[in-house]
């Protein structure tokens, strides 16, 4: 079938080729056997299989949303009520298990660290579609890390949604490496007073990978803060569409938002489209966005090569330097090693 995913919150001219991502000949799996290769590491978090039905504000399109809500072969409700609770969930794709549709609801009642990792031990084309919802409580400090390391034949769809209460502080980190097509949709509803949502993403596109990134933050409460920082590298014939929206709603007095996107292009055939939107119906705000793209800075390259590194090594180093600021947020050292290894391999 043909589906359209990742629709922008505000449409613009069709000729600009960014309103949505059209996918042809895509099979949406159903009647799935439960996904078994899941590792859940936690101490006291309560984990169950009851997830409330919920209509996403944005999401990755009706077809994928229904698929995740009705056909999921992994349903997890994570409840954390102890301060500093850590939960790590690792899904590993294998030759036997190539389809994962997961529906995750996270409810935090205290500070928490949640990590969700998608690994792959197979060369087969896999399919992954998910919905991850995060509901916070006032004053929570919540870190969420999502790591996509699928192989480059696979389809990867993810819809994330957060709602933030008074003084909640969410740090969300997305490491988006795998997938022939990777379409990620993210929505933060920053409702509570002085709530802060800080999203940082790394993506890496090689071969013919397509990255379709659609991030939206609504700033509603007074003195709320919303940050979107996306750092990416494209090589070969990879293609990236970035759509980022900061929407300052009337009443969000004293709100601040910053959206920053940088794309490093390593090949003349790589393509980068960016649509960084600022929408605003409140005067007492500070909103900024900046996007930039271009090739590796030649001065840095020359400097590093003058210290004995090959061009390839120098580029890797520069890319790593760009990513480091975001990678710092991955506290699990083994996972960080895996990610760095994956990035180096792909480059």
């Amino acid at each position, binding site marked *: 079938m043909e589906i359209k995913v990742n629709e922008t919150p505000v*449409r613009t001219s069709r000729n600009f080729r960014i309103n949505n991502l059209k996918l042809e000949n895509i099979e949406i799996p159903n009647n799935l056997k439960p996904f078994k290769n899941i590792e859940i590491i936690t101490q006291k978090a309560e984990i169950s299989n009851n997830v409330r039905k919920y209509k996403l504000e944005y999401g990755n399109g009706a077809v994928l949303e229904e698929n995740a809500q009705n056909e999921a072969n992994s349903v997890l409700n994570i409840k954390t009520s102890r301060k500093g609770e850590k939960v790590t969930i690792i899904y590993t794709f294998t030759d036997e298990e190539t389809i994962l549709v997961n529906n995750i609801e996270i409810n935090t009642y205290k500070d928490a660290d949640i990590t969700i990792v998608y690994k792959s031990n197979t060369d087969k084309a896999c399919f992954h579609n998910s919905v991850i919802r995060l509901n916070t409580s006032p004053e929570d400090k919540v870190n969420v890390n999502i790591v996509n390391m699928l192989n480059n034949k696979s389809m990867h769809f993810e819809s994330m949604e957060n709602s933030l209460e008074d003084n909640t502080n969410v740090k969300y980190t997305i490491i988006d490496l795998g997938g022939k097509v990777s379409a990620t949709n993210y929505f933060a509803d920053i409702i509570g007073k002085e709530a802060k949502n800080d999203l940082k993403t790394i993506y890496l596109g090689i071969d013919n990978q397509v990255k379709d990134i659609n991030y939206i933050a609504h700033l509603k409460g007074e003195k709320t803060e919303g940050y979107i920082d996306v750092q990416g590298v494209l090589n070969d014939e990879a293609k990236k569409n970035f759509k980022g929206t900061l929407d300052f709603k009337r009443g969000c007095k004293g709100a601040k938002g910053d959206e920053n996107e940088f794309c490093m292009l390593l090949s003349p055939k790589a393509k980068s489209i960016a649509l960084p939107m*600022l*929408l605003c119906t409140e005067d007492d705000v500070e909103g900024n966005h900046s996007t930039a793209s271009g090739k590796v800075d030649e001065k840095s390259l020359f400097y590093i090569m003058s210290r004995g590194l090959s061009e390839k090594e120098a580029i890797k180093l520069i890319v790593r330097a760009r990513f480091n600021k975001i990678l710092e947020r991955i506290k699990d050292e083994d996972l960080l090693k895996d990610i760095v290894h994956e990035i180096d391999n792909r480059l």
Partner: protein
Amino acid sequence: MAKTKVDDINRNIYDVVDKDNYEFKMQKGLNREIVEEISKRKNEPDWMLDIRLKALEMYNKLELPTWGPDLSELKMDEIATYVKPKANLNNSWDDVPEEIKNTFERLGIPEAERKSLAGVGAQYDSEVVYHSIKQELLDQGVIYTDMETAVREYPEIVKEHFMKCVPINDHKFVALHAAVWSGGSFVYVPKGVKLDVPLQSYFRLNSPESGQFEHTLIIVEEGASLHFIEGCSAPKYNKVNLHAGCVELYVKDNAYLRYSTIENWSKNMMNLNTKKALVGKNAQVDWVTGSFGSKVSMLYPMSILNGEGARTEYTGITFAGAGQDLDTGFKVVHNAPNTSSVVNSRSISKNGGACTYRALVRIAEQAKGSKCSVSCESLMLDGISRSDTIPVNDVETDDVEFSHEAKIGKISDKEIFYLMSRGLSEEDAKAMIVRGFAYPVSKELPVEYAVEMNNLINIELEGSIG
């Protein structure tokens, strides 16, 4: 607490309504008979009628845009597409009928011509009523006339360029324009001729429930240079008026064109205008645009940098007040190596007005070594208005320098305090800051226009009562 109130633009001189005293007003609506009638009245050659009819067909096929401002109030069957004023084309202001002349005098057009212009064109409703150019420019081979005359006298040039830069299927209102166009200016600057003072065309729409569809075609030959100014205004009526003009600019190798617009349509105007420039090798086109009027605007001038080393700059300000939805911006396509573009956009929203900056930057795969930098700032003067920034940046190759920055916010309290500490009242301080915000645009305008723009941005403070 004192609350800022920014005055609506002082429209007194623009809002003077002349009697709807036309020689001929086309029945409302749009169909083949109407298009044929316009063509017949203009005594046009068949090739132009063919373009019109093809465009009409296209118009009927094309959809309304699925994005942007609400156009539902626009009903084509309530719009008269052609209104011929009671005046023929004149070369002397003295011969322009009194009432029409008074209108243009109020707008300062004849005075501007005497003072600082190389030539002037003035259109009233659907027809150009006045056109003149300095003799010395004629001697150098410069052509500046209305489009109808150009079709008659320079058919080869017009045929080669008309609706070629902007194809008739570009969007629905381009097709509409091509079907019913009337009036507008034709400028031809021969190779190497440089005009050091500007030409100006002024468009006035007086007739209610009508449309203006002027066509501007400018060809600046190799190494030549021109500054063209376009002004537009209309008095306010209760029913919707439509402006769907089209501007086609050909800037040949090493040529330079600056295209300045002060748009001050009344607030019942749907301004759905299309402007595009094709830019040759090492040539440059600069757009300077001030958008103050109309109810709805959808206006995105476009530069297509086809020649190696071509350059373009866009400097624009949009000021939206109550009831206005102004969707403006800029499009640039880098099609050749080492091309460059600089975009500087400012917008001010107040009293519930909405400004949208909508833009496209496309750097094609072959445009190695190209550069683009975009800066976009929006000022919100109150909490009931709206300001959106929707820029698409499409980079298709690696050897480029591209950067885009945008900011949104209110007037800085620190700046207000600084100015007040020097004795300025709060309202004076705010006015000064808003003018400073608009300064990157006003400094690009000829001096008289900059003054006019500053007067347009008139700010007053409303103190608390008691």
